[in-house]
């Protein structure tokens, strides 16, 4: 297949997909005759093209795949356009979320201990309902075998992270001064 044709198919596939699409999925859809490095090369080409200032959206690498998203500088225009409620997060939900992000899988008791003993059931519930976290298993070596929580793919999507390793190491946030 010609490169131009390939590029067109890849662009169309990403455009139509509801979820971020990765190289492997693209390869499966196109056929094994096209190697991953060619696909990767085209994805980079597309990223470069849409990053130009004439475009209103760009190709972002997120949650293990590629997705078209509007550019940040257009947010005021889009917010004006739409009558929607922007994502909002309470301080406590965000604290619980960041602890889960870094310490997953983690139990509710562990989360609460790290927050100085604050009851975190409400925040957990909110995060579960928003599908930013999920119950990922149980901690078997603790009496009562409590449930453990982990972040979801949607968490990566909402915060624009490629994968969990895209989070800066927690040590970077440890400051000598307060």
């Amino acid at each position: 297949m010609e490169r131009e044709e390939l590029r067109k198919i890849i662009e169309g596939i990403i455009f139509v997909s509801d979820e971020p699409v990765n190289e492997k999925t693209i390869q499966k859809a196109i056929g094994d005759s096209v190697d991953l490095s060619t696909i990767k090369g085209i994805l980079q080409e597309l990223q470069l093209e849409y990053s130009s200032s004439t475009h209103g959206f760009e190709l972002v690498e997120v949650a293990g795949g590629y997705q078209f998203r509007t550019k940040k500088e257009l947010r005021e225009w889009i917010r004006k356009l739409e009558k929607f409620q922007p994502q909002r997060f309470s301080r406590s939900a965000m604290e619980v979320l960041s602890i889960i992000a870094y310490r997953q899988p983690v139990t509710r008791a562990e989360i609460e201990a790290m927050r100085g003993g604050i009851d975190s059931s409400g925040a957990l519930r909110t995060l579960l309902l928003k599908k930013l976290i999920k119950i990922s298993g149980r901690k078997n070596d603790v009496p009562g075998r409590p449930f453990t929580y982990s972040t979801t793919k949607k968490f990566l999507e909402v915060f624009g992270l490629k994968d969990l390793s895209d989070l800066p190491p927690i040590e970077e946030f440890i400051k000598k001064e307060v």
Partner: protein
Amino acid sequence: MRVNLPLFEGPLDLLLYLIKKNEFDIFDIPISQITQEYLEYLSNMEKLNMEIATEFIVMAAKLLQIKVMMLLRGDEEAEEDPREELVSALISYQAFKEAVDFLLSREILNKDVFLKSHAKKQIEDEEVWTELSPSDLMLLMKDILKRMKKPSFQEIEIEKVSVVEKVKFIIEKTSENKTFLFDELVSEISNLMHLVAFILAILELMRLGIVKVVQMKPFGKIMVYRTEKKFEENLLKGIEEYGERRAQEDN
């Protein structure tokens, strides 16, 4: 006297605030002073009739305990610092607060950046699950049980569902692929009001001679197909007016 009390997420949050305000060294916190300020804050809360959560009291007890241990401690360097546990809890909590700021500084979906309309709908209405977790089952079950407790004659939530929208949907579907299965179309419809609107839309399009509905044999699959008649935009307006008239008659 008016007291303005800053609000804190918990005792660690309050302690970090006091450390910052007084420019204390986190590795060498003057326990007597911070304990005093901490207790002052709690008593101010009490004066304002604010509820003091247990964890604040627990921390107050812990601070007092550390204070006593500090007084009992000799000068020997080798001895463990009674503040150690508190310090490491504060440092780790502080790091998570920074992590919160990091997350909030990202280009957040549906706040800073947006998806193409189709994909966006999937994210917003939360109606589609692609990643399955037991917690989803638990939350849904809770929801179902809550619904069951409500009296059965509860008002049906009437959502504004437009027939015109469904007409457009059908036209769009049929323009690419002339024949399609009724079941296939209906499978994308999630609730009763939408189904009603959908059926009204099909009836309307049949009346206008734009689609035909055929069933090959009894209980067989129902096929919907486009006739040769062209669909024109101005027909939508007619349908809209028809819908409005009906709504008025209903009232």
